[in-house]
């Protein structure tokens, strides 16, 4: 137990060091505005992919409606700051809660479905959310909600990202998290072990949706605008691709996937015609040679590089 706490503190210190380095580089303009924008985008995508990983990777429920929750967060957050004139911190909380609440309501009926059916249902729900927003005049309809103040900066994204990552990491290591893993492995066996499968599936779905909402608030307060076209199902697929590329059920994988894919997009921004080609080739090659994703369901650690893998004692260290 102490061992784990110590490691948590170590990684927090590591995060802080990374933050200081990045912030200094931004301050002294070693990182220009173009890359600063992309770094913020990477941060937002990390939050999205890590939260989707909780649903798809750890709990094994195949959801592809994440952009819908992103939209809910983006719009409710913008309503709080623009329409009601309340502070950004409140917007973050409201966006998170609204997206979470919607996730809960949607999760209750749809999580009874399995496999492809759940995927189709969540895909449809994501679109329904977008179409609804498109037709609400109050939030600007098809022209989007404009004039959102820029509150998001690198510091906010970094802070929220670290909180979300640590929250999900600890959730997965807790008793409810173990239940989610058991559901992924075998739902019937989980149920015969006394695990309330519906409850934990809805719990994971709600948490994932809530964090997507947080990412949405950050998103709309960085780009000055919340526009329905940013939240199409292609956005959901983007996030899903990051998770699958990194490896379903691996936190390091989800983060790597987000960094890699957002990075590739940014690097190829000057060659827009090549962007999609290289993007797709990357994915095809990966699926051919490493279908379980870059990390499989393992985490990045020094043990990974030792011979024979780091599987021994996995449980012992969890004690």
């Amino acid at each position: 137990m102490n061992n784990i706490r110590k490691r948590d503190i170590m990684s927090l210190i590591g995060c802080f060091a990374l933050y200081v380095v990045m912030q200094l580089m931004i301050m002294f303009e070693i990182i220009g505005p173009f890359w600063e924008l992309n770094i913020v985008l990477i941060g937002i995508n990390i939050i999205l992919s890590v939260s989707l990983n909780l649903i798809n990777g750890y709990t094994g429920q195949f959801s592809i409606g994440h952009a819908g929750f992103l939209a809910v967060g983006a719009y409710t957050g913008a309503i709080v700051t623009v329409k009601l004139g309340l502070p950004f911190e409140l917007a973050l909380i409201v966006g998170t809660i609204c997206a979470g609440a919607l996730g809960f309501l949607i999760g209750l009926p749809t999580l009874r479905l399995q496999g492809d059916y759940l995927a189709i249902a969540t895909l449809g729900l994501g679109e329904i959310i977008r179409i609804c927003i498109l037709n609400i005049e109050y939030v600007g309809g098809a022209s989007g909600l404009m004039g959102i103040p820029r509150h998001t900066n690198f510091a906010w994204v970094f802070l929220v990202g670290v909180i979300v990552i640590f929250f999900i990491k600890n959730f997965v290591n807790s008793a409810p998290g173990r239940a989610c893993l058991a559901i992924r492995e075998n739902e019937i066996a989980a149920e015969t072990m006394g695990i309330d499968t519906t409850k934990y599936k809805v719990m994971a779905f709600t948490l994932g949706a809530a964090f997507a909402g947080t990412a949405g608030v950050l998103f709309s307060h960085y780009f000055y605008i919340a526009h329905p076209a940013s939240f199409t199902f292609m956005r959901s697929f983007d996030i899903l691709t990051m998770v699958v590329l990194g490896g379903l059920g691996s936190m390091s994988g989800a983060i790597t996937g987000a960094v890699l894919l957002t990075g590739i997009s940014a690097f190829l921004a000057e060659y827009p015609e090549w962007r999609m080609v290289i993007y797709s080739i990357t994915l095809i090659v990966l699926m051919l040679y490493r279908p379980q994703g870059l990390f499989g369901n393992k985490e990045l650690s020094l043990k990974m590089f030792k011979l024979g893998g780091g599987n021994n004692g996995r449980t012992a260290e969890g004690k």
Partner: protein
Amino acid sequence: MLKVNNIDVYYGAIHAIKGISIQVAKGEIVTLVGSNGAGKSTTLRTISGLLKPKSGTILFEDNRIDGSAAHKIVGMGLCQVPEGRRVFSNMTVMENLELGAYLRTDKDEISRDFEDVFRKFPRLAERKFQVAGTLSGGEQQMLAMGRALMSKPRLLLLDEPSMGLAPLLVKEIFYIIQEINESGTTVLLVEQNANMALSIADKAYVLETGRIALAGTAKELASSEAVRKAYLGG
């Protein structure tokens, strides 16, 4: 201990169980035998709450459990080892067993029960940190049983524990079932291997197309002419 009264179970429009009644007394091994599609597994799944009966009642220690959710029934002390083993294949043996104790909070007793399971299944102790999916069929069956025992059931439901196992392993599994029974757990056993099942059971029911065709002590049934012809190969 367990009283199943006249239950009917449907899969959609298909009437799978037609008015089955079963009684299991404390400390017994009771077995349901019958051919494919007779409704043995369906009966078991209904008792453990994975399926809901359309009519009839199920009483476990005088509490009605029909219609309760499966995870609540486990908490009452009735645990099923599902058919085809269904271990958590990407987790280690130890993690599988830990999940078996999911509903329990008594840490000291849990660690004592780990010891107990490892004593019953020494093979599992050797493979503590091995990923469950890489175990052999017999070892997975042992793991599934050990995992169920970790929830400390008073009534253990076993669904075809001998399925797909080598004869020697089948013997070992049945020996362990008797051992579990002797240490105070009541067992309800579903088997296709009627010979083996009848040899260790106290009481038996023979199922045929969703009905109980015969019932009696295991000895009676094993020597009955009809059963010998239909299930024991002459």
